[in-house]
């Protein structure tokens, strides 16, 4: 496949950027959710939730905008995947609803059963969301049955396989690692000490999952590495990925929590870059009929619309970055609970 830097490629990359932004940002707050029940004390749980309090909603906007951009730029992908993954998508939606509501409602009442109920809802939904995202990603790698009319030709169980579940669990592990580093950064005292001691376990859990997934992919889904064979310099991404992961325990050991967090972000970027390079120029692989795959060309909107949307993105992105940076700057530092907190 000849590489052409055209509008379709730019939109493939822009949607990749949006989803990577989502994975980095919502990734840590999903991770905080996954770790939530391991913290037992009520006040500590409140600190966990409030560490993501001002930002989780904005983080989720990356997903919402990613979905909107997918709809606009590659409507066939949006239509095929969302209708084909119907049950999985509905479960994901309920995860997102319950998570939002759990964060909002948990600390509004003092009753123990009330808080326990929302704590479980928050944690389970966070894990479910991460798992389903990973399973979806896994299905994109393995390919899904698509017919000549660009319609999904499987069912819910087509989507569940050992490999897709493995990618799901790897995603959960990745976000737990990412989230634990974030919590270390945002807390102090006893709670911080406790979470700090979990970081290494989370890294080990993630690395085991990651290595297994990588081997599985290389053996059974070698189409994902074709571009790396054709253009060996792309292997730099894999090296950077490894270095970023290896750097995390080092920074944690030296107590440089922010740099550990940046390393974790870098490893997510590299991971998704590996995925995107492997996939390009397909967006959804058709398996067993590769000729029906949805690509950045046959699934795209018109050139005119891609062009208009690019102008929209060029105007919008500086604002988005400015908001994001300001919010994280305003709410920098350790979490403090006050009357307006969750």
């Amino acid at each position, binding site marked *: 496949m000849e590489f052409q830097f055209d509008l379709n490629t730019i939109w493939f990359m822009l949607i990749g950027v949006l989803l990577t932004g989502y994975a980095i940002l919502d990734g840590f707050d999903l991770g905080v959710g996954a770790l939530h029940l391991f913290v037992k004390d009520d006040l500590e749980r409140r600190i966990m939730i409030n560490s993501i309090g*001002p930002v989780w*909603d904005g983080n989720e906007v990356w997903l919402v905008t990613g979905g909107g951009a997918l709809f606009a730029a590659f409507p066939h992908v949006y239509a095929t995947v969302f209708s084909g993954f119907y049950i999985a998508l509905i479960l994901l939606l309920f995860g997102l609803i319950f998570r939002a509501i759990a964060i909002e409602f948990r600390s509004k009442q003092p009753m123990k059963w009330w808080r326990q109920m929302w704590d479980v809802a928050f944690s389970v939904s966070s894990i479910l969301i991460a798992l389903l995202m990973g399973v979806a990603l896994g299905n994109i790698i393995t390919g899904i049955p698509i017919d000549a009319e660009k319609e999904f030709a499987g069912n819910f169980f087509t989507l569940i396989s050992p490999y897709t579940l493995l990618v799901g669990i790897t995603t959960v592990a990745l976000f737990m690692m990412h989230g634990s580093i974030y919590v270390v950064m945002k807390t102090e005292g006893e709670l911080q000490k406790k979470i700090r001691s979990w970081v290494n376990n989370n890294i080990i859990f993630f690395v085991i999952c990651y290595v297994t997934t990588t081997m599985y992919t290389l053996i059974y889904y070698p189409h994902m590495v074709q571009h790396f064979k054709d253009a060996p310099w792309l292997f730099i991404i894999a090296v950077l990925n490894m270095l970023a992961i290896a750097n995390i325990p080092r920074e944690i050991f030296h107590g440089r929590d922010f740099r550990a967090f940046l390393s974790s972000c870098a490893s997510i970027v590299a991971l998704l870059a590996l995925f995107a390079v492997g996939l390009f120029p397909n967006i959804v692989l058709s398996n067993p009929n590769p000729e029906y795959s949805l690509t950045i060309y046959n699934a795209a909107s018109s050139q005119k619309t891609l062009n208009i949307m690019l102008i929209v993105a060029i105007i919008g992105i500086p604002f988005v970055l400015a908001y994001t940076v300001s919010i994280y700057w305003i709410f920098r530092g350790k979490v403090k609970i006050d009357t307006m907190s969750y």
Partner: protein
Amino acid sequence: MDVEILSRIQFAFTIAFHYIYPPLSIGLGVLLVIMEGMYLKTGNKLYEQMTKFWVKIFALTFAMGVASGIVMEFEFGTNWATYSRFVGDVFGSALAAEGIFAFFLESGFLAVLVFGWNKVSPKMHFFSTIMVSFGSMLSAVWIVVANSWQQTPAGYHIVGEGINARAEITDFWEMVFNPSSMERLSHVLSGAWLAGAFLVLSVSAYYLLRNKHIEFAKSSFKIALGLALFASLFQLFTGHKSAVGISKTQPAKLAAFEAHSDSSGVGDLYLFGWVNDQQQEVKLGFKIPGMLSYLVHGDSKKPLTGLNAFKPEDRPPVNIVFQSYHIMVAIGFGLIALSLIGIYMLWRGKLFEKRWLLWIFVFSVLGPQIANQLGWISAEVGRQPWIVYNLLRTSEALSKVVTANQVWFSLILFTLVYFLLFILFIYLLNEKIKHGPEGAENIPSEYEHQKAALERN
């Protein structure tokens, strides 16, 4: 039931549930800007107390809006995939613009609005309040533009044939400023301002009746009453503009509003009535002859396009459109009357003594909510059988691979979960209202105890 009817029910149910909250956020947002602006200008602590209290209510409605809103964005793809393929080039653009221009703005500044009281200067906080309010209206802009394009498509051409046909943009600005978008946007926004204003009026009237937080309630009431008067009158104006626009762009819908069937006859205006959907005639109605023609053409003798100008399969169901439209209009006039009486009594200095009037205000919160829902029912059911007017039928817009069982599964889940959410929403809203604003008379809350405990550690 088949996939089509189930998907229709599910979409109607989820969008109706969602639409309880964004109008409240938009309306409250405007009031927050006024309240906090007054605080910055006068330095009066009362306005700060007001802002902080209504911010908490705002945050609750906003969270509900976000949680139920994500569903909407996904549901186009899950249940209406054929529609998504057909309109993605056009509709998707507006949706993506909403995300990039409005959602990021709202969510970013919302964090400062709710959590940033001690983190930023008062001016920066006020700026954030303005931005959140602006952002919430901006998201209304894009979603109403997208929906209006479905009502009155413009700036597009159709490419491909049969199942591969789809609409593609030819002129972005023509698509954005399609014939109905500005009229409908102003109508939607003033409906949202009414929703926010009457929520504040209702809660304030309740406090006054219960003799609680008197100063707080009086101030809140006055500010909200101002917005209510403006928005209810503006609503009449935008509603009239919309109806005149519809007479040109979607004559079948206007004909359904008034059950006007004969194209050679003048349009009558019904005050009320009941439409027999088989014969499409009004029974038991009371009409002003020729009034509809007068409102549309300025001439009560001029004939108006009726339902019989359309093939039976191209007509919307008439009675439901007729009823929802008429009740909406009636509520709209009711809200104008209530606002005028309130202003008159305020001017006479007797408003806060009239307990009967305060009780009406307590229940008035339902008015804009019901009218907003009915307005959308008139607009959307009135567009049927089309999902994109004259281009794509709703029955042809479904996802081809989704089965009835799957939609049953999601519909039952949505029903259960939304029922639970609604109860929780009302419960927490009630708790917040009972708790009232934080002030000198309030004992330190449980949160402050915890904060103190945290600081001791």
